[in-house]
Each structure stands twice: as C-alpha cells, then as structure tokens.
C-alpha cells in the first residue's frame, strides 16, 4: 500500500510532456516577439522603396522624405496589414483610406508634409528636386 502511495505521489509530481511543450511554446513565442522587435528596430522596419514610391509598412512611411521632380507621379503603396491614408494640410491632397495591398497615385506640384490620420505619429514629407 505504501509503495502504491509512493508511486502515485511520484506520478503526481512528474512533469508532463505536454506541460514542457507548452512552456517551450509560450516562452518561445515571447522570446520570438522580443527578438523580432529588436531585429526589426535595428534593420529598419520598412522594405526599401523604389524611386518615386512611398511604402507604407509597419505603421510608417518609407522614405520619411521623398525627393521628386515637379509634375512627376508618386505612388503610395500600402504593404501593411492596416489601412492608412495620405493627408496633407492642402485639402487637395487626401487619399481617403488606402486598404492593405492598394496604392494611391499623386502628381506632385509642390512640396508638402503629410500624415496618416488613422495612426498618430505616422508622417513624412515630399520635397521637390532641384
């Protein structure tokens, strides 16, 4: 009887494989999130943009300052998971909501600063070349 009790107690105290896997999964996710954030902070969060293109990714415009020739077309490319917009003080520059995967095109006539009104702190500017 005493042996059976000791066996039961030992089983009760033994770590379960599922428990170990759960600890590894949840701990791994927490660690992966920290590593991902640190890595992307060091790498720069957005993919490189092509000429006359502003990429929206990870809640930022890239580049922060785009130099374009007067009369040229700028493409705002939303590669994020969130909807964004391009809004300037000039009411003529207002993209409306740009859904993920969609673009907004604008022929630039003057330098301007713009922002996404959905995401505070997400801003950038366009300057004219020359």
């Amino acid at each position, binding site marked *: 009887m005493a042996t059976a009790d000791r066996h039961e107690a030992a089983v009760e105290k033994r770590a379960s494989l*599922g428990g170990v896997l759960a600890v590894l999964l949840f701990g791994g996710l927490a660690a992966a999130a920290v590593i991902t954030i640190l890595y992307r902070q060091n790498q720069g969060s957005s993919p490189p943009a092509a000429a006359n293109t502003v990429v929206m990714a990870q809640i930022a415009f890239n580049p922060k300052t785009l130099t374009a020739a007067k009369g040229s077309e700028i493409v705002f490319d939303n590669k994020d998971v969130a909807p964004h917009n391009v809004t300037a003080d000039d009411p003529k520059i207002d993209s409306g909501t740009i859904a993920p995967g969609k673009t907004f095109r604008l022929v630039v006539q003057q330098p301007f600063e713009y922002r996404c009104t959905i995401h505070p702190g997400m801003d950038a500017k366009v300057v004219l070349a020359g």
Partner: protein
Amino acid sequence: MINFLNDITGGHLLLWKVVLTSIVFALAGLQVAMAARFWGGPALIAMSPGTAVRVHRVSGRLALTLGVLVALTCIVGPAGPLSPTRVALHSLFGILAFTVLAVKFLLIKVLRQGDSVLPLIGSLLFLTFAAIWATSVADYVAAK
C-alpha cells in the same frame, strides 16, 4: 509574409485578428468565471465545480490555440515598430501574456507546485488580455 497573410484574408487581416482577439478576450473572461467557481470564489455562473473545471480546460485550450494563432500573425507580420505608444504597449502586453503563460504551465505542469498563486496568475492573464484587446481591437473600432 505580409502579402501572403493579406491575400489569404482577402485584405482583411486586421479584421480577422480583431475577431479572434475578441473571442480570446471573451474566453479569458469565461476562464476567470470558471476558476472562481472551483476556487471557492463568487459563483458568477450557476454550475457545479466539476463542470466548471471541464469548461475551464476546454475554453482554455481554445483560447490558447486562437491566441497563439493571432500572436504568430503578429510576429511574422507587423511586429517591430514601437511607435505610436499604443503599438509599443500592445507588443509589451503580448510578450507579458505569453511570459505569464509559460510561468503558469511551468508551475502547474512541470514543477507541480505553486497552486496558491494560480488565482493571481489567472487574474494577471485576464488583465493582460484585456490590455491587449484595448490596445488593438478598441483602437481598430475607434478608427472605424
């Protein structure tokens, strides 16, 4: 990866995450109610302690499965920016949630001890999920 996630959700990845996060938050509330039942706390739902244990296990597994799914889409997708403050807090609470979960499973399934702190851990988890919900879903709805 972002493009792939946007494609399979028809460009509505955030909406999917909002729905799943809301389900996880609701299940976290259910978890607290069930735990209160079998820990001798106030009976928020009329149910026997034995049934409460079973519901706690099933809803917990469902919540964790959905939570892991949402977390993975965050990590391979938008994770990285620490601005604005809401995004930084969302990341912080997400990391905290899975750290607390790892500690909880370490205590109850590996070390087989620390039962007395489980109500504290459960409450902390619920509040963390509430914070995750508030810094993502609430903002999404408000922006709409």
